[in-house]
């Protein structure tokens, strides 16, 4: 599946957040969008998954426009979104959260197979399956947010700052998991302020600055770039 974003513009009450960005993501890619606060990273992901409607440009999936569709329809196109701040359903149990992640799948076998896979990846979710989701630690909640998105069996997975506020060891765990997921063929689009991590994991990267793509290059090259080093890697 090929996702293309072309000349995408988004504004909130006339204040523009994206000022015409374009990029393409092929099946099996691992790309990252990095940038500072308010650059428009979340807006990009939120527009792809239909939470925000663009004011210009278009988004296509295998050539068909998806930018006018509602989020609940876009999930059915197998685009999963792990939102900023996790947004798990805190009052529901871990397994209820996961079952809701599989809301688009009516086939019991598929759902059972998928939940098994998620539990294999994140055994801690299995231990806590009957626990109220809001009572878990931040790292566990992030695993649940990722697990919930996986329950829809996405071909393209969007992740918005999954490392935020987590201990380095858990960040590493999540990073390894994303690489493994990608090696199994899932396309990953990762948004991070932790550029260090993101550029290690991804193959290609985009630097977003105030609603525009300032740089686009192989992740390794970006990691070596003087400007990127100074502005985002804190070296």
């Amino acid at each position: 599946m090929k996702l293309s974003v072309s000349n995408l513009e988004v504004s909130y009450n006339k204040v523009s957040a994206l000022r015409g960005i374009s990029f393409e993501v092929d099946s099996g890619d691992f790309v990252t969008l990095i940038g500072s606060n308010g650059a428009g990273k979340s807006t990009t992901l939120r527009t792809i998954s239909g939470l925000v409607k663009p004011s210009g440009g278009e988004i296509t999936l295998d050539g068909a426009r998806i930018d006018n569709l509602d989020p609940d329809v876009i999930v059915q196109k197998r685009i999963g979104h792990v939102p900023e701040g996790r947004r798990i359903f805190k009052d529901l149990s871990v397994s209820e959260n996961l079952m809701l992640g599989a809301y688009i799948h009516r086939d019991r076998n598929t759902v059972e197979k998928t939940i098994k896979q998620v539990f294999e990846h994140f055994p801690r979710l299995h231990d806590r399956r009957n626990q109220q989701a809001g009572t878990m630690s931040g790292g566990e909640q992030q695993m649940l947010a990722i697990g919930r998105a996986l329950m829809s069996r996405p071909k393209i997975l969007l992740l918005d700052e999954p490392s935020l506020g987590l201990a380095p060891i858990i960040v590493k765990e999540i990073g390894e998991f994303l690489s493994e997921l990608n090696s199994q063929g899932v396309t990953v689009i990762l948004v991070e302020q932790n550029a260090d991590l993101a550029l290690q994991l991804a193959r290609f990267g985009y630097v977003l600055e105030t609603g525009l793509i300032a740089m686009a290059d192989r992740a390794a090259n970006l990691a070596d770039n003087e400007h990127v080093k100074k502005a985002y890697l804190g070296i």
Partner: protein
Amino acid sequence: MELLVQTMVNGIIQSGFYALAAVGLVLIFGVMKVVNFAHGELTMVGAYSVWFLHAQNDMPFLLTVVTAVVLVAMIGLLMERFLFRPMTDSPLGGLICSIGVLFVLQVAATLVGGEGPSKQVPPPYEGTLVLFDMLRIPYQRLFSFAVAATTLGLLWYFLTRMRIGWALRAVAQDREAASLQGINSNRMSMIAMGVGAAMAGLAGALMAPLTNINPHMGHNVIITAFIVTIVGGVGSLPGAVIASVLYALFHTFVTTYFSGTIATISGLVIMVLILIVRPSGILGKRVTE
């Protein structure tokens, strides 16, 4: 002692209606974030339907209860589709629309039933159950309570054991995150409004043979539902049910030993006290963020 036990039983039976109305209100608020001021009028329409169809036109009682529930659910669905949905981004807009519906329904009831004294529906189930030679429970009340309790049980099952129930709770907690799971939030609003209104209609239909029916009877219902909702914690369904039972016991006791007016006033005072002392209610979550 006899009076005490009898009052207790009356209170518990009364709590069925309160819970039906309050839980519907909480469900609608939880999913749609709209305070439905017309909720009491939905109950009134339920009661009027029974009066009009059963008492005036001899339709069998049970059939009129079902008809009332369906009719009120439809009114709820229309409100969702044509008033609340266009007002999604403006909770105040939804509230004002619901006040409009309140007046429209009151006028409609006056047109159908005319002005004049309150209407009565003769209880279709006569007789009284006598327990231990001292407890007296009219069959009509027993029936109403059984139906109300069963309905609440079914709602509980629906919300905790069924996929759609989980989806409703998910939308109530985080509409956006729910839509990212493929849940159509407009559809969930329709379900919440349909179920919430149906429960209000049922409360009214069950109440009809036991109360005075007039276009303004909704006031009492909404005041009670508000008290119960706030005491139980805004947005907490279990809280609403528990608060209904407590409030009904309290109200019945005060009414029996003093008067109905004092009961309602002291109920409001308790509500205000709870708002001051513990704004999240008995079972409500502490407000975060």
